[in-house]
């Protein structure tokens, strides 16, 4: 009897984890969050799995750090070989989905002349904090509508494990971060 119930609960546990398809425990894609891209298409947070990505959080009404974040991420991408570049996803996630409409996201992508293939995502309003939490991005809305936030590029491997972080302090890529990006891209 005891053995049977052990067997049953083991089976149940297996069934419960099957849908996760052996997602590592420390993957940020365990988070059930929904986003919308600049083309108004829904993008599940967990669907970003499958490719290494550089992810950052920003907002379009930001005139101080966010342009630097985007330029810094462009600088990372620019220093990769074409084969590496094709393997690495670039994702900018909005901290301010109420104002960052698809049109606003398109506009910021155009203004910064970001290369093809970048994703600009606006999370559902109640998913912003959780995404920021798994990325360890801290933020706070100010009275004037601006946002205090940590400026960070986060390197996720294909399974969504945080592999490196780079604090954005200027437009140029951090060489140490770049080495880590190349290392993750070199993995099979």
């Amino acid at each position, binding site marked *: 009897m005891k053995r049977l119930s052990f067997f049953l609960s083991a089976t149940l546990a297996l069934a419960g984890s099957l849908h996760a398809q052996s997602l590592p425990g420390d993957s940020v894609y365990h988070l059930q969050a929904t986003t919308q891209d600049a083309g108004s298409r829904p993008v599940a947070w967990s669907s970003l799995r499958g490719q290494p990505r550089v992810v950052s959080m920003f907002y379009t009404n930001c005139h101080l750090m966010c342009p630097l974040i985007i330029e810094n991420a462009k600088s990372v991408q620019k220093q990769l070989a074409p084969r590496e570049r094709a393997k690495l996803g670039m994702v900018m996630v909005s901290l301010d989905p109420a104002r960052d409409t698809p049109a606003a996201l398109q506009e910021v992508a155009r203004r910064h002349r970001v290369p093809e293939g970048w994703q600009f995502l606006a999370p559902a309003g109640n998913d912003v904090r959780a995404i920021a939490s798994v990325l360890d991005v801290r933020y706070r809305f100010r*009275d004037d509508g601006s946002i205090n936030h940590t400026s960070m590029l986060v390197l996720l491997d294909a399974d969504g494990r945080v592999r490196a972080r780079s604090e954005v302090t200027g437009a140029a890529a951090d060489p140490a971060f770049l080495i880590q990006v190349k290392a993750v891209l070199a993995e099979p």
Partner: protein
Amino acid sequence: MKRTLPSTASLFLLAMASALAIAGDAGNGYRHVEGGDFRSSVRFEETTRVVRVASFSLMARPVSNHEFAGFVARQSQWRRDRIPTVFASPGYLGHWASADAPGDGVDPDAPAVHVNWYAADAYCREQQARLPRFVEWEYAAAADATRRDARGDPRWRMRQVNDGTPHAIDAAPDTPANAYGIQGLHGAYWEWSEDYASLLGDGDRRGQQDGDSLRYCGATALAFNDPGDYGVVKRFVLLSALQPGATLGNLGFRCARSTP
């Protein structure tokens, strides 16, 4: 004239049914908190000291062990033996006797503690609710049994002294609810807020040559509006120091809902 009553009535019944479906919520209803202008104790770099707090509702008591056990049973990915490590710290529900039950050694009615932010957030989502923002907690906690803002009263200030410990004045079981009908806001337990990660830095570090310059975009000095508010600020600083996966033996949570 077309009668709309039947459809209204069926909508009402549907609403009732879904309200009943939210198990574990019985007896821990939401209390309405009328919004207003509020002098927060936490002052950032903004010059305005008064913030507008919109009306909201807040659970009368923190979520209990019993209520949280119901949630864990319904959503087993939040059991301590199944929770993904990305959300958890080793202490998550560590005081429970087993992965699915608090056990005899834990008071079922006591606030659920050793719960991380992600699990608290998930619990509130299941309630079609959310965690309260810090200023909402602060606004509701400014009340005493009869007044909505009793902070000028030295007796109210005394309540903060041992706030978050078993010696807190409001930890006594016979403490009356506050003017909104809400209990335990200054009790033995601190509580998560939605915006726990709002305090970015301890000062404006831009321009300093410490290698950390520009780490915090626009983060400048945090100050108290009144040194007598230290109890509130202490709580705010504690929450801001936490990682979302962290748990504490005196940190629980309750849920809030925006008023449509």
